[in-house]
């Protein structure tokens, strides 16, 4: 619509990232450069993913209309690369002590850096091109809202990976975390599956709700597990 509308969308998309960085004690640790490094690793991971996808799974041409479940599953499976990249980030790049107390700094640095890079690379251009056009469309506001959900999602994945990498994690929590991580990989399949088996194609706000509510649940569970570990350690 107008530049003003573009400003609105940007504020909605980037505001929470900025606030999260500013008010989560990250500046005190001088973590900006760390976040940028994480972003670099994100870009590298995406390149690797694309190379693998292009080399081993060439896209089936022509049948872009019909949803191929197999292809969708492969595409989602490649997202394991994201987990590997993030674990690399958490294990090696983000320094700091190994104590539980600095865990949240690690998680925040890795998750925020990862999410911010994701935001810049996947949403900045569509917003710049689309939200300034004459045509009004709710999809740019939804895209901005989705950016917020993806921040939470990335943070929760970072938490889960951090938990997974801990040695002192309670053994009964490991299967739960594994399940949650798997879910976080395959969550993009939800609308595809719905489309295939129930022949409903959610759009707009219902699609947004459909993808964001499971993500929020995962985030809540990972947060409580994080606290439980924290509690068990401090006892």
């Amino acid at each position, binding site marked *: *619509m107008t530049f003003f509308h573009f400003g609105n969308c940007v504020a909605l998309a980037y505001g*929470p990232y900025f606030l999260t960085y500013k008010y989560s004690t990250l500046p005190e640790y001088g973590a900006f450069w760390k976040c940028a490094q994480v972003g670099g690793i994100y870009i590298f991971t995406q390149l690797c993913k694309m190379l693998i996808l292009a080399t081993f799974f060439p896209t089936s041409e022509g049948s872009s209309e019909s949803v191929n479940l197999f292809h969708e599953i492969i595409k989602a499976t490649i997202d394991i690369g994201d987990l590997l990249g993030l674990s690399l980030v958490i294990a090696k790049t983000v320094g700091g002590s190994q104590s539980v107390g600095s865990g949240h700094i690690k998680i925040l640095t890795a998750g925020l850096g990862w999410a911010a890079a994701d935001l810049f690379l996947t949403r900045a251009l569509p917003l710049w091109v689309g939200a300034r056009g004459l045509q009004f469309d709710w999809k740019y506001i939804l895209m901005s809202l989705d950016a917020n959900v993806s921040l939470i999602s990335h943070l929760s994945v970072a938490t889960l990976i951090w938990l997974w990498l801990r040695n002192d994690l309670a053994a009964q929590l490991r299967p739960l975390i594994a399940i949650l991580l798997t879910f976080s990989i395959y969550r993009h399949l939800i609308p595809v599956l719905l489309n295939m088996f129930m022949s409903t194609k959610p759009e707009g706000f219902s699609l947004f709700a459909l993808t964001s509510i499971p993500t929020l649940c995962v985030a809540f569970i990972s947060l409580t597990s994080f606290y439980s570990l924290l509690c068990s350690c401090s006892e």
Partner: protein
Amino acid sequence: MWSHEDLFDIFRGNFPYYLLIAFPILLILSPMPVSGSVEFPVFRLQQFELHGSTYGSQSSLVNVEARTLDSGSYARRCVLVRIKDLTPSLYHQLVNQGAAALLILLPKSLNSLSLEHKELIWELEEVLIDTEVQMAVYLAYESAELTDIYDSVRTFTNTDSASSAAAALLSSLSSDGYQMVVGGSQSKKISDSFIANIHGRLAGYGVEEQLPTIAIVAHYDAFAAAPELAFGADSNGSGVVALLEIARILSKLYSSVRTHPQKNILFLLSGGGFFNYQGSKRFLEDQLDASDSPLLSEIEFALCLDTLTNGSSLNFHASRKPKENTPPFQFYTALEEAGKQLGVNIEMIHKKINLKEDLQSWEHEKYSMRKITAFTLSRLSNPKTGERGSLTDTFEVLNATVLKERVAVIVAGLLKYIYNRPVDDLLAGGLSVTEDSINSWLSLLKSQPRSTQMLSGKNNPFISSLHQILSRYASEVKTALNKADRRDPEWVFYDNWRSSMTAYAVKPASFDFVLTLVIAAYLSVVYLFLQYFPRLFSFLYKLTATQRLKIN
């Protein structure tokens, strides 16, 4: 190593000023997307100058919000209106209120309209063309998408009369407005516009220069509110069909020694028939003012054909009543007899030329003014009904069978006059008017809109195909391109007859403002959440701790 402090140091220097320059450049360079918007073809109202006066809409650019007639104010808006809702007085009201653009929606098929509706459209078309307006006026066929837009705009604009400001705001947030855009460049004069005349002749038996000549004239162009919609089936497609059919039949008679008559025939397909017969005017000037005028020497009369189909009778328009025993009178009686035979009533209508008027109502008046006996054959009794040169004059309405009958009457009358005897034997011998040939001429005429300005190019394919067809039947076929006078042009045409209009769904500015408020509120909630996160953290910590204690 960088800290975030370093990054913020950048902003303390000159960097912000560079951004001030860079942003507008980025804004200009980045492409405007068109995804999701609705695009449809639109046809622009006529814009031309004739004898120094200006007609039609003077602008072709649109970039304003859409409104319907329901909203009271039209200033700087694009008004969407169905053609049956638009009246001349309403049109003047729109012009006076300063509407920026007008989009007239035409029903998908114009031929299903009743005669009453058609008469209203004729009246409206005349007003549209005669009024010189600054706003851009377009016509479009109403597609399903356009109907949706029309309905949406209608509910959207009804908020102007909502009960309270809050209600108006709420409904404007939930419904879509539309921004109508026609880009490109402003309409401009076509510098090289030609009005072409195509003429050919059939030489009679004997010394050619001493034989009397009959001129058969039909203008080939069409006219409507929008040049792109000017198909002109009846006026003057029917005239052209009749002329070509006469040429086809006469060429056979002229090629046989036995039936070679002692009269020359001159065929003229004239241009600019809706621009005060500029084609005929130029033809007469060229032929009469030239030192030797072989084409128009010894001319008996000129027969103009204009709008022949439909109706019950053919009218014989003359500016002076033909005297008895003169060629025109003989032709009239021949025609009357042929009409009686084939069941078509021929009526004589005679109207003096009003020399005070700039615009002539019939083509024959141009000839009469140059002292050449001439008359027009037409089914219309009055040239100014608006039926000539209208949107409604499409080929779907044209009845080829009726047209065939009319042409047969004219051919029979003409032959009767030429041979001065009953000609039933000639017509029976495979020389009759056939529906096949009528249809083949019609399919040529049908192929494209024939408004004068669209045929004004130097090498127009339609003109060349007319030239080719005429040269099949007549000799010495020539296409004469007439250019408007350089200093004092009789006619000036403007381009941009057809564009595509894009409708973008938009929200009012108040929507963005409300959105800003909502986002600000959301961000402050996020801020508060982050601020109290440690407290929430410790609360949860305590909660789980007490639970653990209980369990233990």
